[in-house]
């Protein structure tokens, strides 16, 4: 489908208060900064944010945490954001910590129609609490279940007007798996190019997964 590019504010308006939102990025690298800023500007409330980390107080997902937009995070790391720690200890925000590889697989499972995956990660730790242990060929594994969200907010390098996406170096991280695991998928590109310009082997996320495209930076 050919897609008209939205402004960041128009994209932020598509994220309802209280929604579950996957946000790409690793310490802000590969996060959709303009849409995050627009969510802060809009005063979004009560979001459940799924991502790798909560960035820093002024970086990445941390901007949403600082602005009070977030009710809960599901992330692998919060050590770089003291605001997250404070809000967690004060009971103002729920924090669900998930091992990074397990987080990636749970999101992938959500997008790939799998009912779950078995991983050795987390066995013998607090991560295993309340989870089913499945034995395969004499080895124990944790059953980890799929994650999906109402909205995925992605950053990408190039997009064409079908919303075929490419990523760049370490800014790729969680974006491709999140593109498959949400009902509304919004991609914020650094550049928009004509259809047919990205070779089929270089596309990383096909446009059929992306419901909305944000305009290039002005």
């Amino acid at each position, binding site marked *: 489908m050919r897609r008209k590019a939205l402004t960041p504010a128009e994209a932020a308006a598509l994220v309802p208060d209280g929604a579950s939102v996957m946000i790409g990025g*690793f*310490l*802000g*690298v*590969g996060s959709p900064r303009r849409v995050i800023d627009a969510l802060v500007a809009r005063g979004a409330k009560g979001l459940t944010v799924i991502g*790798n*980390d909560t960035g820093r107080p002024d970086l990445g997902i941390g901007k949403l945490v600082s602005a009070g937009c977030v009710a809960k995070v599901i*992330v*692998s*790391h*919060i*050590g*770089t954001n003291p605001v997250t*720690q404070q809000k*967690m200890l004060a009971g103002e925000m729920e*924090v669900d*910590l998930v*091992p*990074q*590889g*397990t*987080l*990636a*697989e749970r*999101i*992938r499972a959500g997008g790939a129609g799998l009912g779950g995956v078995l*991983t*050795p*990660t*987390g*066995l*013998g*730790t*607090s*991560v295993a609490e309340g989870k089913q242990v499945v034995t395969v060929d004499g080895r124990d594994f944790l059953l980890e279940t799929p994650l999906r969200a109402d909205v995925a907010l992605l950053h990408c*390098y190039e997009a064409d007007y079908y919303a075929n996406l490419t*990523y*760049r*170096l*370490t*800014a*790729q*991280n*969680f*974006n*491709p*798996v999140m593109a498959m695991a949400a009902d509304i998928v919004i991609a914020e590109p650094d550049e928009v190019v004509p259809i047919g310009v990205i070779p089929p082997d270089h596309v*990383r996320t096909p446009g059929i997964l992306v419901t909305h495209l944000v305009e290039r930076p002005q």
Partner: protein
Amino acid sequence: MDAKEIIARRVARELRDNTLVNLGIGLPTLVARYVPEGMLVAFQSENGIIGFGARPPEGMEDPNLTDAGGGFISALPGAFAFDSATSFALIRGGHLDMTVLGGLQVDAKGRLANWKVPGRMVAGMGGAMDLVAGAKRVVVAMQHAAKGEAKIVPELTLPPTAARPVSLVVTDLAVIEPTADGLVLRERAPGVAVEEILAATAAPLILPDTIPEMPL
């Protein structure tokens, strides 16, 4: 030579030619400075690159090319960039020859704790649980004691990172190897006596007949 340099130099001796190695953020990243001359080691950064190099000159940084601590890096010839699912498929799948991680505690069974101090500090496990579960060798690089308190303890008092024991612990005082029989003191730091190590260690240590100084 300060404590961190001792640790980094000694850990670098564990590197092998033509291997894939992940360095945790903080102290472990220093190891990359001491790769033996002529040795080819591919470093993985779990945020998505194999084959990265030093921070580029001022003004030549790329906001889309960073390490797992968010610092700017460069890409060496033959580098490979990838997403998080691929990154941890490599880690969990046993394709990583070695990982070097920081530690808060290691116990007599060789178990590591490095992600949470209940009531005080919750960093989160990040990739550490997957790294300990999946890497062929897990080397812990940490100060031997913190503020006078032993970090090598009989039983973890902090939440464990994995059930699986680590392969080796390198500190500013000693090299210690977890075995089925317990922790074995393999090496002393230059000028450090065995008694000094025992005094700074809360867990029992097995003492072989010879305990040489670390090669650095």
